[in-house]
């Protein structure tokens, strides 16, 4: 490169005056093009490209506690607008969704609190969110019943994690529920580490009940050909990652195993790459595995997903406008075909 090639794009300073929509603010961020502002603006451009690309299947990886923190309805709305096609989630995120679907709440709390006192009051803490124990207990009781129903219907046949999510969504009636919206819109929700959540302990409760004739079987290995099939059959694949961990790895590995490689990637995280853990690993590292194409549009936004992701969605939906109707390449009814 020549010297002048490095000096093509001067930083344009942000101008914040009067009323500003979210997308106008993002455009100001783009003018700066620097640090987190530049990265968030790039993430918005990439997500817009993903949803406008008629050949692209959009995967959303969900980890961390963004559902109890207030992003539940936002995700359900994205599903209903079909601005995401496939969700890969921790079990815990869907547990918190189900808690609210059954009438429970998460409460605004404080991170500086006497946790021994909370323990004595049967209140659990997620940083500055409080969850009463009865939310989990009522969930356990209700879902253990559902597990029994599902097991009886399936007559001992095992389910993939997305079939399990579908069965739960069928039984939850709350329209703001992610599980319910996914069931109605045929958007698969994979939970590769489903056991590592309250869903696993509910299974223990369900299976230990003496009257139980048939025990629910969920087999996460069944997910592998399904998610690889979705990637393989889609001309292009893009992912948006909130956090990382198992959900991110599941999408990336499916992209590799189906010999596709991701075409778009947005990762929102606060983790660091130096530990070698996946939640902080760079997308360039992902390219080295063949999980993402070298020429893929990608960006990693370092920041709190609870701030970044709603801004990203607000900006892109503003750009798309009210009349935009996405026709997704992937349809959940074709899963496993």
């Amino acid at each position, binding site marked *: 490169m020549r010297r002048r090639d490095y000096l093509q794009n001067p930083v344009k300073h942000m101008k914040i005056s009067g009323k500003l929509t979210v997308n106008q603010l993002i455009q100001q961020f783009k003018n700066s093009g620097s640090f987190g502002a530049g990265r968030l603006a790039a993430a918005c451009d990439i997500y817009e490209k993903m949803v406008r690309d008629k050949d692209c299947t959009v995967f959303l990886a969900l980890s961390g506690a963004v559902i109890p923190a207030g992003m539940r309805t936002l995700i359900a709305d994205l599903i209903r607008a079909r601005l995401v096609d496939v969700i890969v989630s921790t079990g815990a995120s869907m547990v918190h969704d189900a808690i609210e679907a059954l009438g429970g709440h998460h409460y605004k709390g404080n991170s500086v609190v006497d946790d021994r006192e909370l323990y*004595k*009051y049967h209140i659990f803490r997620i940083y500055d969110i409080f969850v009463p124990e009865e939310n989990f207990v009522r969930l*356990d009781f209700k879902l253990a019943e559902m597990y029994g129903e599902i097991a009886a219907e399936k007559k001992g046949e095992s389910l993939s994690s997305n079939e399990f999510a579908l069965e739960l969504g069928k039984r939850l009636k709350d329209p703001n529920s992610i599980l319910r919206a996914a069931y109605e819109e045929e958007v698969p929700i994979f939970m590769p580490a489903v056991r590592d959540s309250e869903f696993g302990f509910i299974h223990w409760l369900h299976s230990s009940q003496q009257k139980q004739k048939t025990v629910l079987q969920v087999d996460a290995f069944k997910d592998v050909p399904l998610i690889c099939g979705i990637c393989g059959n889609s001309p292009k694949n893009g992912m948006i990652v909130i956090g990382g961990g198992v959900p991110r790895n599941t999408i990336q590995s499916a992209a590799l195993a189906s010999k596709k490689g991701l075409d778009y990637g947005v990762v929102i995280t606060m983790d660091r790459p130096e530990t070698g853990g996946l939640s902080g690993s760079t997308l360039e590292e992902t390219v080295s595995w063949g999980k993402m194409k070298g020429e893929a549009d990608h960006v990693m936004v370092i920041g709190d997903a609870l701030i970044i992701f709603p801004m990203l969605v607000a900006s892109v939906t503003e750009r798309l406008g009210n009349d935009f109707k996405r026709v997704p390449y992937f349809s959940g009814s074709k899963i496993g075909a």
Partner: protein
Amino acid sequence: MKKNVKPINYCGNCDSHNAYDYPTRMFCSTRYDQNKDPIVDTLWCCSDWNPVSQECHCVREALKEKERRLKQR
């Protein structure tokens, strides 16, 4: 000299208790396993009673609630 205080046999002092309708009602996992109604009063108790390993406020609060209700009558 400190006296040994024997815990009162309430569901809310049992190791199988979980909050169901704090503080007055509990979910008993042992009864659930046995196909019995698992929702019990905090101030009830049965023959399977085992002391809880760590103190919580359930019984104290349930007793307060009981007293409050009695006063309201």
